[in-house]
């Protein structure tokens, strides 16, 4: 046992191994590295190829989004929420708009709620497709990522037709949404979902039964149910460890109070289970999208709100089930049109905490396998 005080990194020499010991190697993985999903830096102590210790260093993508939100009128802040988890802007906006609505006591019209559900589920599909594709890219398979991005492109095109922008959609408004569907959008969406169903089956045929994929992921990065709950994991990470917890079911918000969701749970708690939960959730989201299209009510898409939104003084917490887990906004208002504080509870940030615990003792090749299965987005970790 030794503590390397100079580097501030706790290193542990393995007492069990006999014979000559090699020197531990300190390896900086990132922030410029192909598979750290952005600019995460991992300081790893390696013994051979075995990870002895790992310290994630974050903050390379810090843009001060929470501080920016405090300095923008509430409507202006919605646009900045796009950049937090840049793979699921619709979900971020829903969380922020929902928090303000909850603080002001506004209930969006029923049509707006269903439009939010539809766009949220499409966004969840897009985010999970990126997660699955880049995960396979981390494991060395080249094709799935391109197939996934091809399918995600369809969703982004739909968003472009709907909101005018592919990526930073700026679509949600306090009290509803910005635009109604353009003509023919819903039928286009249905056609896309049918095609996506076929493509997903093809994707699964390529990946799921593959022996190499199975030996790389099954049993790797095991998180027990108790441990997952203790670390505060949410989303697919938690559900892959056998805990049936989904905010859409357990604290239903908006249209989810009317549309039941089948929560996908697996009990293995390893990387394969996390991958599988994500794929199953894509199927489930496709089903939810179809339900939303079928049940899409008429009526206004937005309630009338004052131009300057002044939520009453008070605090509120509103959380949506984002693609990565519980995405919450803790909203404090002092009665002015600027939020006094808008704290984001990001699922990526919380899920990342378990990484050093998970990596210890695994080989270096497993580092990317485990890290990819966490599905973190550094834009939201650093905010």
């Amino acid at each position, binding site marked *: 046992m030794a503590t390397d005080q100079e580097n501030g990194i706790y290193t542990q020499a393995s007492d069990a191994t006999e014979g000559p010991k090699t020197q531990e*190697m300190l390896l900086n993985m990132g922030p410029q590295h192909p598979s750290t999903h952005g600019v995460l830096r991992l300081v790893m102590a390696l013994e051979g190829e075995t990870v002895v210790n790992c310290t994630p260093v974050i903050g390379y993508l810090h843009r001060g989004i929470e501080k920016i939100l405090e300095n923008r009128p509430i409507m202006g802040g919605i646009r900045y929420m796009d950049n937090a988890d840049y793979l699921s802007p619709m979900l971020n906006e829903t969380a922020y708009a929902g928090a303000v609505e909850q603080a002001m006591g506004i209930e969006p019209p029923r049509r707006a709620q269903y439009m939010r559900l539809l766009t949220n589920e499409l966004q969840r599909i897009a985010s999970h497709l990126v997660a699955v594709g880049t995960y396979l890219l981390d494991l060395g398979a080249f094709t799935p990522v391109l197939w996934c991005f091809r399918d995600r492109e369809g969703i982004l095109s739909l968003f472009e037709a709907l909101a005018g922008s592919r990526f930073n959609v700026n679509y949600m408004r306090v009290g509803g949404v910005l635009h109604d569907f353009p003509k023919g959008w819903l039928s286009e969406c249905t056609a896309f979902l049918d095609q996506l169903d076929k493509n997903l089956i093809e994707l699964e045929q390529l990946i799921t039964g593959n022996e190499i994929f199975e030996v790389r992921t099954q049993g790797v990065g095991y998180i027990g149910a108790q441990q997952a709950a203790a670390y505060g994991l949410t989303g697919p990470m938690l559900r892959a460890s056998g805990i049936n917890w989904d905010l859409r079911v357990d604290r239903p918000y908006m249209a989810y109070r009317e549309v039941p969701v089948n929560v996908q749970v697996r009990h293995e708690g390893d990387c394969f289970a996390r991958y599988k939960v994500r794929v199953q959730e894509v199927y489930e989201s496709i089903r939810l999208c179809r339900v939303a299209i079928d049940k899409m009510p008429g009526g206004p898409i937005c309630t009338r709100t004052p131009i300057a939104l002044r939520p009453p003084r*008070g605090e509120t917490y509103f959380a949506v089930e984002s693609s990565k887990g519980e995405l919450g906004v803790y909203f404090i208002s002092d009665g002015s049109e600027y939020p006094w504080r808008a704290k984001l509870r990001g699922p990526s940030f919380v899920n990342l905490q378990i990484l050093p615990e998970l990596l210890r003792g695994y080989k270096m090749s497993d580092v990317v396998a485990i890290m990819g299965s966490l599905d973190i987005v550094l834009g939201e970790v650093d905010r």
Partner: protein
Amino acid sequence: MSTMLLADNVWWTQLLNGIFSWAFLQFLVAFLSIFGFIMTSAMILILAERKVMGWMQDRTGPLHTGPWGLLQTVADVGKLLLKEDIHVVMSDKILFLLAPSVFMAPVIASFAVLPFSPYIAIPGTALATGIVYYVAMSSIDIVGVMMAGWSSNNKYSLIGGLRSAAQMISYELPLVLALVSVVMLTSALANDGIGTISLLQIQQYQNSWMKTGNGVLDFLFEGFTPWSWFFLIQPLMLVIYYTCGLAETNRAPFDLPEAESELVAGYLTEYSGMRWALFFLGEYGNMTIVSAIATYLFLGGFSGPGVAYLTGLNNIGWGLAGNLLAMGYFTLKVYLLCFVFIWIRSTLPRLRADQLMQFAWLILMPVTLGNILLTGLLYLLLEGVPSWLFLVVTGIVNWAMLFGFIWLVGRVTVASTRRAQSPAVRARHYASPASTVQLRDGVPTQAVPLPAGTEAASGLK
């Protein structure tokens, strides 16, 4: 005698006799075509890889340089030649500069044993010891990779180099053992019981046709008998040889030394410009060689309809046509195998280092050794029967082994993953109802308004 030689062969007569000889012309043609083949083949393969992978991945691949993107590789090479050659300051300079050449040279040297057609081959020299020479050359590659990994003074490079050394050495053994069984087949086919390790002769053993006198049949099948190619008799060995070839050339799914997502670019990390391109060229050259050796040993080499017939006519024009035809067949078969390389790359994920080693030492080694033993036993048991019967029996046994091998790999996968998942299974099995996690707490979803007149606890004004 010696005085005669000295008197007759003064240096210019020797030189003239050497240069204006049939053998020298043959050497020159062979050398130029081999060297040209390596260079052009690498360029074509790089383009083919990008196009084929683009096709498999539902995208177009390079499209803008030249018609249909055909000049993309030319542009790439031009760029690489003009790029600055960056050296790392703290690197071991001599090794760093030498490593690409050490990697590239054996690749070019290996081509010396490859006959491209009945006449285009470097004559005499290494042909008789084809397989041994090839194996020796392919193991020198490791030195270049090790040098690059060590001298770059980069941790990723070092790990990549070490991984690569371990991998190439491990897979060299089953690769050679897979080839041994082919040599054993030739010794069973030979009249005197002595086999051969020459690639040309192994190819001839696969294509023995008795002249029937029927012109059409003779034209088609003289020197081309696909029913007796060794991939039908030893299919498992082809699969294992090809797998080891993937590992030897550091191609996916065995591309751990240059695993992009883990080691950035492995031993290539610090290289740029033409030195990097030499490694790349070497890799694609290696790919061609592995495919070429597999072509000779299992797919009947350059044989094809018409080759032996045309070259046997003793007519220069028809002989040339036969040679060109042979090169065409050979290139076709080699690129077919290279296509499988690309196909595999775009399909499979990467193995882990320890799983890679286990696969080589615990599965491939015993299987290839067992196959050698089995072939020898069959040879002993079936002594005296006609050779076609021996081939049929060996073929049946080996096809059964192939399916057994596939079943074995599947079983090993299932067993190992089940063992790896055992903590989850155990935790679920022994979980008592009391320890199940309770998360549902019935938190209201509506905002709870603060009582009027009270200040929030968070210190609002």
